[in-house]
């Protein structure tokens, strides 16, 4: 049974609207059931995606190539894990909502991520600036609501306002860039742009470059690349933790597929394409340095993960800068798959520990190895992978990125990468130190883990090792 690929998005959209509707009519139900409906529905979508291969869509602005399929799957998986986290996080959410009834507001909290997922899936396939822009806005507007969701929490509101203003600014850059590109090429479709570019008058080349750089700035906001990263720490810290995870994995990943497609489109005209690559290299260098150096002194785990997410954007940009190498796209895909696993695993453990300890500080994890050896081990694996210890997924990602960078002779980035990996070992192992060396805080009660979260954690830990030990699994994610 095969569907036209666009049905996946429509199904996810319908699922989100269904949850919203059900919520209105089911006053008495435990709202967590809606999250479960969302998880089951998305799992079905994932299975169909897994079964369907790349193909043709019959539309000029929408493609179903292997990267599109991969990023759709990635979006669906991320949303599933975010919903699992949201169930554990529901009690915290309720504390910060005006309590008209004990469960009011929870339904939307479970429905919005599903709608966001539809937007991300669309973005994975979009190859026309119009469609890219629309799907980007669908994702961003859902995030406006989600980030500021805990209305009575000042930090969450602050995060919401910051995200709103800076995102709007970034959107402005993107749109302005698109108009320039359109003005020069008379096209919005990336394939057309790619074909038309070599024949544009030389006088118009600066215009094309200007437009491309503006789009790069706009996307830089989405993927949290320095120097467009300054919203990240506060927004990540203030937003509800599952949403932070969603932002740092989902929003960033689909930003990268768009970035890859845009950079690729401009490669047909070396005069512009090479300068664009130089800009990406500079962006990568700044992002690597800023993310990893600023992470060093952090004492709050959520902030640490925020800076680490900036740092990882730097490694990903390294791979994008090496777009002329054969493995570049594959490096981005493998890195993102690893990044998804290890980051979501960290956030999941963080949600569980913080709801039973009351804080996001690293000190909150002191003595976790005695309180809950299982959670401590899971987080140890996540930290090892984030730091890039071999035989974990994170190492394979770094390995491929460094390989691409070496192949394309990005020696500056390689030298910076050596330094920043060293930094990474320090700040990720700070969490390990808290869990294993430091004496436990007064509260020694064991931490209960729900069966759903337990399953998710076990699966992610296993996948981290599987991807790390059997590279062919990770490479199979993007068939060439």
């Amino acid at each position, binding site marked *: 049974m095969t569907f036209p690929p666009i049905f996946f998005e429509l199904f996810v959209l319908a699922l989100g609207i269904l949850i919203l509707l059900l919520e209105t009519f089911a006053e008495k139900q435990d709202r967590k059931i809606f999250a479960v409906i969302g998880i089951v529905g998305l799992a079905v979508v994932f299975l169909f995606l897994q079964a369907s291969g790349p193909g043709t869509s019959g539309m000029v602005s929408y493609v179903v190539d292997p990267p599109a399929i991969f990023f759709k799957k990635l979006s669906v998986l991320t949303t599933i894990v975010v919903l699992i986290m949201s169930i554990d996080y529901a009690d915290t959410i309720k504390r910060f909502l005006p309590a008209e009834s004990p469960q009011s507001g929870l339904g939307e909290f479970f429905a919005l991520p599903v709608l966001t997922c539809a937007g991300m899936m669309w973005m994975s396939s979009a190859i026309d600036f119009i469609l890219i822009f629309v799907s980007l806005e669908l994702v961003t507007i859902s995030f406006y609501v989600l980030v500021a969701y805990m209305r009575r929490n000042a930090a969450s509101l602050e995060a919401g306002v910051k995200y709103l203003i800076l995102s709007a600014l970034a959107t402005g850059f993107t749109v302005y860039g698109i108009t320039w590109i359109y003005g020069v090429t008379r096209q919005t479709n990336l394939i057309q742009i790619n074909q038309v570019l070599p024949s544009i008058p030389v006088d118009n080349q600066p215009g094309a470059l200007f437009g491309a750089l503006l789009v790069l700035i706009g996307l830089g906001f989405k993927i949290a690349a320095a120097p467009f990263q300054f919203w990240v720490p506060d927004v990540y810290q203030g937003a509800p933790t599952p949403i932070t995870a969603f932002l740092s994995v989902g929003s960033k990943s689909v930003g990268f597929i768009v970035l890859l497609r845009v950079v690729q489109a401009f490669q047909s005209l070396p005069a512009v394409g090479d300068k664009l690559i130089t800009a990406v290299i500079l962006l990568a260098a700044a992002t690597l340095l800023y993310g990893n150096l600023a992470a060093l002194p952090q004492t709050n785990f959520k902030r640490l993960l925020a800076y680490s997410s900036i740092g990882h954007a730097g490694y990903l940009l390294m791979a994008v800068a090496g777009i002329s190498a054969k493995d570049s796209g594959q490096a981005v895909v493998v890195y993102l798959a690893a990044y998804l696993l290890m980051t979501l695993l960290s956030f999941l453990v963080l949600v569980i520990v913080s709801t039973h300890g009351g804080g996001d500080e690293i000190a909150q994890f002191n003595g976790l190895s005695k309180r809950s050896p299982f959670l401590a081990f899971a987080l140890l694996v996540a930290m090892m992978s984030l730091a890039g210890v071999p*035989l974990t997924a994170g190492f394979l990602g770094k390995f491929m990125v460094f390989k691409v960078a070496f192949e394309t002779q990005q020696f500056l980035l390689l030298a910076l990468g050596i330094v920043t990996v060293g930094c990474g*070992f320090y700040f990720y192992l700070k969490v390990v130190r808290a869990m294993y*060396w430091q004496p436990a805080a007064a509260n020694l009660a064991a931490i209960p883990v729900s069966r759903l979260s337990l399953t998710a954690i076990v699966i992610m830990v296993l996948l981290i090792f599987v991807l790390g030990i059997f590279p062919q699994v990770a490479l199979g994610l993007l068939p060439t």
Partner: protein
Amino acid sequence: MSFLVHLIYLSPIVAGVVILLGLPPRRTGVIATVIALVSATLVFVGYDRAISGYQFRSFLPLVTDWDLKFSVGVDGLSATMLLLTSIVALASVWLAPKVEEGENRYYACILFIAAGAAGAFASLDLFFFYAFHELALIPTFLMIGIWGSGNRQSAAWKITIYLSIGSIVLLVGLIGLYLLPSPDQRTFDIVKLQELAATGAFSGPGSRSVYLLLLLGFGTLVSLFPFHTWAPQAYASAPVPVTMLHAGVLKKFGLYGLLRVALPMMPDAARHWAWLLLILLAGNILYVGLATIAQKQLDLTLAYSSVMHMGYIFLGIASYNVIGLNGAALLMFAHGLSIAALFALSGELRKQTGTLNYLDLGGLATNMPTLSFVFGMATFASIGLPGFANFASELLVFFGAFKNSTPGAGFNEFQIVGTIALWGVVISSVYMLRAYRAIFMGERQARWQMVKDMPLSLGWTIILLIAALLIVGLVPRTVLDAVEPGIRLFVK
């Protein structure tokens, strides 16, 4: 028979996992390391010296595009290193103390460190060769941080950050090595790479930079001067089993890597950079040697001495001739055993007296006749007295350095550094004999009256280590016959 090689690294890994899942730590650990030792001995004995080359091979293709396999096998050098690994692994598990809390994690960490070393020595694929070594990094961090002594936190940070940066430099170097040949020849298979090297695939313009990356990366892992400062503090603070494994075995990974990967693939680059290595290794021998004399505590003396002795091995590698490389390989084996024995004995001393400071100790030979005797043996081995494997190997290293001469041209850089290294022997006898005198001779303080001689369990360990040293010392051919054919393949 290739399953024997798999047993050497798999049995500690499996034991570590099942210990974490709840099996009795000590018994499981000892059984696993005994299995590994038996397998390693069978591999070492069963390695057919007449045929030489790589034997006991088996592989599992993983990524065909990159020619990446999970591939294991041994030649004489790796069989020797595997034997060393399993001897020291058994000794360190055997000596592991009773741990109050988290005993399963303690044993699992030791076993993972041992497995990391063994896996790296058994791998014939660059990817896993590298990956296995890094497997030991996090357990070392945890062991020093949780169960270390003294300034354990800073020691744990230092070793972890240093080694991780060293490893990432090494990784970049290995990627560079992989990318040097033309695209259709690229492979991670070490055997194929060595065959490619014969066709000159690695002699291109990039090879010198790649070799430098490998030299610095591997060098940091072996505490090459001036990247050695992680070692003394870490070895002084780490729990005894970790120090034995790390100083004895894991550190040799860098040297092994130079012998296995860097030298055979890029002989021209190796000769080009020999001057740099000579300067740095002179730092190891002279600077660190003098620093060792200044130490006032046994654990620090031993830790610094283990850094200093790396200088001799580097000298053998720098001279790049059969005799020098033979000496380097033999010294890797000998030093691993002697330093493990010394750290085991110093751990026992610390357990009995609570201090290793020379000013506090003295006259302990009265209470500890056996311990002082075997400590003396290990001391002599470490200095390099005839009869022990260290003597044979250091001699070969010096011959190797002096052989690099042009007749009638006077002293060249190899002989100058060789002469400095000869003085290193004097330096090491100064600090080792001073340590011996300060601890075992002279006035015994009244508070050491109750100190007892060493227990039988430690005795067995030391016998195992010293016996291996003596056998190889008296008949160096046992090891050299295995090692030499592999070296002759890339040294004309």
